[in-house]
């Protein structure tokens, strides 16, 4: 396993590995920049983006608020269509179901299209342990499978590799030197996969959306591989997170507008397949047997939690990763879980029931809010990161020194006289280390800061110390407020009061 991908250590340690890897940083920067400008252009071209974002959010909010109803409807309809529907409360149960089907079918090989849920469950590992050949057919997934890594982006799994690294991996796979030319490399993988498709016993997919009204599942993809996975093998297994539901095909129109534009800036995804049950007698192709495994794995814990329920609205577009300045510098593996970037930083602790070992990911954010702004269903990830931090503190898992520091902070901030005194003392204490209004020593809390910056010194006098003088000066020199300005301000006060806000001196 790639060191940057290990779940060992802290986020900080993993991030430091990534920060020292220029290949990774350049590759991630290059592709996320392309994706985010594509998304921006697509949103602008759409013309009504904000309105559609709100529509998307409303659909997701409504569905998740009535998830039990829509799940039941979906399951009923899917069963009517002849699908075997299974529920898996956790990874172990989901793996069990997959293995039982595989054994029953005496499967020797499984061909997969891209599925983040299957990554979450580490299903490849389980299949391979049982001696079943498992082949990823999405180009990016194929690459990271060869490299023995997990996805570092929820849409572009091999985003952290440049084409030279990819050519190297594929050359090794091919047993011949392949040039670092994207078309040639993709052509090689396509040829190689063709035989695998024909020989596979089981096709395994994820699910972008599950349509409750007809019990159908919908896949979005660009390579056509998911089509092959869902038509060639005799048995199909679809893994879906329990929140993938939307009520109707009409709702899909909104999602089909939001998802590809947010993910890659495409107006439409190349292939959108809607699958309603196994092959019927009149159908030309399709699996003879179809299973859908609905996976909970920590999702239902978010239901009814006012701070985190909206996490289930996520449509896994990756837009939040593409705009995230932290993700851009440290890549996906630094997050340590299957899901990376801002959504991963919240989803991983949430799905893992906030266990202490995952909590530190929430610190890997400057809370800039770019994720929220980019999210097509407006999930307030920047707020959720703060909620995670707060829960950790409330449960007594806060760093001891930080807790002490914060107590001290509260003592100072409760009383301006104490604050003023502390400022004065700080000014005396800083004297030996200040040069030309700057501090360069790399000690204590200034160590990290001053590795990249020069810290400013405290001013010779604080604002409050100078206030008396300043206010006397302006009282002497300033003109009175003109009538027009006064009118404007009074108008604002009247409006404020009319909206029910009282207070202030000017009653």
């Amino acid at each position, binding site marked *: 396993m790639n060191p940057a991908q290990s779940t060992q250590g802290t*986020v900080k340690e993993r*991030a*430091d590995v990534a*920060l020292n890897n220029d290949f990774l940083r350049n590759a991630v920067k290059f592709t996320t920049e392309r994706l985010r400008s594509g998304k921006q252009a697509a949103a602008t071209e759409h013309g009504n983006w904000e309105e559609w974002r709100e529509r998307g959010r409303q659909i997701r909010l409504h569905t998740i608020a009535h998830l039990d109803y829509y799940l039941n409807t979906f399951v009923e309809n899917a069963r009517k269509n002849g699908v075997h529907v299974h529920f898996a409360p956790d990874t172990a149960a989901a793996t069990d179901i997959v293995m039982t089907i595989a054994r029953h079918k005496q499967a020797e090989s499984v061909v997969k299209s891209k599925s983040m849920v299957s990554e979450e469950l580490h299903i490849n590992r389980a299949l391979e342990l049982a001696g079943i050949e498992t082949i990823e057919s999405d180009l990016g997934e194929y690459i990271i499978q060869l490299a023995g890594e997990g996805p570092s982006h929820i849409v572009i799994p091999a985003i952290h590799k440049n084409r030279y690294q990819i050519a190297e991996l594929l050359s090794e796979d091919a047993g011949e030197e392949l040039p670092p030319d994207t078309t040639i490399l993709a052509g090689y993988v396509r040829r190689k996969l063709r035989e695998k498709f024909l020989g596979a016993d089981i096709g395994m997919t994820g699910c972008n959306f599950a349509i409750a009204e007809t019990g159908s599942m919908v896949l979005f993809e660009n390579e056509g591989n998911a089509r092959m996975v869902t038509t060639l093998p005799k048995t199909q297994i679809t893994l879906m997170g329990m929140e993938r539901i939307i009520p109707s095909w009409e709702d899909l129109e909104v999602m089909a507008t939001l998802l590809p534009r947010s993910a890659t800036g495409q107006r439409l995804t190349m292939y959108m397949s809607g699958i309603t049950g196994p092959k019927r007698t009149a159908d030309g192709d399709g699996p003879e047997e179809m299973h859908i495994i609905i996976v909970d794995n920590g999702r239902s814990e978010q239901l009814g939690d006012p701070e985190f329920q909206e996490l289930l609205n996520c449509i896994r577009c990756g837009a939040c990763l593409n705009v995230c*300045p*932290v993700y851009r*510098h440290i890549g996906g593996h630094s997050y340590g879980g299957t899901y990376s970037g801002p959504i991963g930083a919240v989803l991983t602790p949430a799905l893992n029931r906030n266990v202490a070992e995952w909590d530190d990911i929430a610190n*890997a*954010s*400057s*809370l*800039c*809010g*770019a994720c929220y702004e980019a999210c097509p269903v407006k999930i307030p990830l920047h707020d959720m990161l*703060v909620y995670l*931090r707060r829960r*950790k*503190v*409330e449960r007594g898992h*806060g760093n001891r020194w930080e*807790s002490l520091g*914060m107590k001290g*902070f*509260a003592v100072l*901030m*409760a*009383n*301006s006289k104490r*604050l003023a005194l502390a*400022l004065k003392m*700080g000014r005396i204490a800083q004297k030996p280390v200040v040069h030309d209004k700057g501090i360069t020593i790399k000690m204590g809390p200034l160590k990290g*800061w*001053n590795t*990249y*910056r*020069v810290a*400013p010194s405290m*001013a010779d006098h*604080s*604002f*409050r110390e100078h*206030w008396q003088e*300043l*206010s006397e000066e*302006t009282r002497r*020199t*300033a*003109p009175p*407020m*003109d009538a027009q*300005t006064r009118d*404007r*301000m*009074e108008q604002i006060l009247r409006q*404020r009061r009319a909206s029910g*806000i*009282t*207070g*202030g*001196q000017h009653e």
Partner: protein
Amino acid sequence: MKVSLFITCLSDAIYPRVGEAMVRLLAAHGVQLDFPPVQTCCGQPSYNSGYWEETRTAAKTILKAFESSDFVVSPSGSCTYMVHHYPELFKDDPHWLQLAHELEAKTYEFTQFLVQVLGITDVGAHFPYKVTYHPSCHGSRLLGVREEPMTLLSQVRGLELVPLPFAEDCCGFGGTFAVKMSDISGAMVSEKVDHIKETEAQVLVGLDMACLMNIAGNLRHRGEQVRVMHLAELLYEGVGVT
């Protein structure tokens, strides 16, 4: 009419010149600022780190300090936005909740106050330099201050405004983030400064001293000569009022 200055800790302790510029600039337009000396910090450091109990202590000092103000104006978008979190902090406490709603409604970031409240878009400044502008995340993205600084800058005589590439990207400050995740933060601020250098601007202007302190610190570390200013300072210097 009581218009109070919410100085914020950084401007109080490190950058008093920003508060002074605001006081003088607004006085020139007939607004005599009031300064409640009992004010301390908005509580962002503890709020963002998850210490909400400690944040309530800081928030109460601020709520009390500005209880009798009609307008509150602050040189920081993120401290202004922090006040918008107060109702959430006191949702189970009707007395403080009431004050929190009031403060939220009457607090303005500096350029919001100039443009929205006073209706001023041209302060009559002259500033013959090449300037680029960094929109701080909380001010622009969360508080929604986007147009105001642009309007004000566009009216300054002699000023050449050069767009900052990837301007909306975070500078990497993030409060305690810069200390806890110092290497990630360092990578972010270095990238920001690379973009600033691309503009060949002589002056970087912004609306939040925290972000500007971060960026200025990296500029100085790298020996770059770009001058870093709060917009209030730039306008005040441009007017030449003394």
